């Protein structure tokens, strides 16, 4: 910034600007929650209209892939929180390590998801694929919805990983004992985790039964 740093000309003091940045991110997260709210409303309407078909379609989902992914994302979310804790107790080395391990687990999550997509392709569940065959229209609809919802979530996971990586790469971020950039990156990552926490029962647990 050519002029004085944003804090002086903009805000009256530095901590007011920090509060503004954090409030800005949380308001943005509120809009993301509403975005995914629409996806969950679609799932809710499908379940309301044809409950038993919804359960049978969900039972074809790969429960253990979903469960593993939930565990991975919860752990990664914890690591991001640890990174914020480390940075704010001025321990930049550990903050960097926690961030990179959170990013690592995020990549593992995407890997498991890609593998699950591949298995679905083999089973002929990938809509539009040559070998796509479904036992009922609703199962095709459920499979389409599954790919749309988890695809949108995977996009947000990728965005979150990018944010976490920039926070990890920036020396100044790790040495900032108020952890503004790391804090906001972690906030976004936690939101991505919360969305998955609700996506998991919607798609996998509905049909999971002995």
């Amino acid at each position, binding site marked *: 910034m050519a002029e004085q740093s944003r804090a002086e000309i903009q805000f009256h003091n530095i901590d007011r600007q920090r509060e503004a940045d954090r409030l800005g991110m949380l308001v943005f997260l509120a809009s993301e929650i509403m975005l995914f709210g629409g996806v969950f409303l679609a799932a809710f309407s499908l379940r309301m209209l044809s*409950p*038993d*078909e919804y*359960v049978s379609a969900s039972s074809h989902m790969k429960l253990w892939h979903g469960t593993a992914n939930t565990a991975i994302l919860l752990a990664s979310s914890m690591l991001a929180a640890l990174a914020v804790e480390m940075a704010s107790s001025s321990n930049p080395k550990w903050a960097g390590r926690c961030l990179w391990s959170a990013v690592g687990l995020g990549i593992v999550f995407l890997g498991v998801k890609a593998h699950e997509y591949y298995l679905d392709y083999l089973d002929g569940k990938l809509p539009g694929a040559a070998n796509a065959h479904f036992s*009922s*229209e*609703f199962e095709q609809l459920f499979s389409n919805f599954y790919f749309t919802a988890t695809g949108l979530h995977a996009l947000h996971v990728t965005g979150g990983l990018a944010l976490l990586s920039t926070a990890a790469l920036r020396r100044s971020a790790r040495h900032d004992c108020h952890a503004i950039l790391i804090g906001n990156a972690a906030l976004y990552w936690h939101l991505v985790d919360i969305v998955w926490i609700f996506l998991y029962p919607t798609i996998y647990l509905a049909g999971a039964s002995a």
Partner: protein
Amino acid sequence: MAASAHADQVDLLIGTFGVLVALLTIPIFVLETVFAIRYRTSREADREHAPVGSNWLEFSWAGIPFVLIVGFFVWSTSIFFQIHRPPPEAMQINVVAKQWMWKFQHAQGAAEINELHVPVGQPVQLMMTSRDVIHSLFLPNFRIKQDLLPGRYTSLWFEAREPGSYDFRCAEFCGTDHSVMGGRLVVMQPEDFAAWLERHSEFGASATLAELGEKLFRDVGCSGCHGPASDVNAPQLAGIFGRPVGLSDGTTIIADEQYLHDSIMLPNKHIAAGYPPIMPTYGNVLEPEQVNALVAYIRFGAPVRKEPEFGAPLRKRREQ
């Protein structure tokens, strides 16, 4: 020109609400002009201790309109429930809308396009569905309309007061020719209507809708599994209409037009308890008109197998 008792009620409701709107708006126009003239900056006026708020005034001009409108709400909701409660003795006519025309199927077999003949003084219930997009049957003279949705039955009923010809129009935007997708409702004396039916039944469909349905029941292969003589483990349809049906997930559902339509077009949506989900879908085989005929057949004409398996009918069966 209001053409039914319901239309008079709606006119009265709109009229009185209009009066309320006038009572709430005219004072504002008047006060605005009076204040603008009396308190113009160039005029001397008493501008001392102008009020800047008074709680009771706020509660009154917010609360009183609210209470009045709640009164109107109760009145209008009671009329709304009348709209959605057709009398049991209503004559049923199936309506199928498709991009840019209306098709009407009378139970007695007559079918007509963009025109509907009904007897005067007899409540008529229209069972409506759409073949493509959302349309909306709007009868301005009767002050009613109802959207038609693909894959779903919606209903509209009216009772014409005087014979005559009334327009009906499509009210939900449905594409290119939305504005010319209208027609004529012809209300006739009962005897004229009976004569009209005779003439049209001879030339039009040779049989009643139920007989048409029975022919389809065999042609498309329903009788293979659901016929009285079949040994396939499929539900018997005789007398099923209007009765509760137990589903595989433990819930029960009334076997109405919508259930029969869904069971034909989306067989796996509600699977009857104790039966395997083996029925093929007719989603892209049958047109809504054909589904209407099948539903009419199942309702009025399905032959009875030796021993009916369902519980007592929930409501009295309607004799044709």
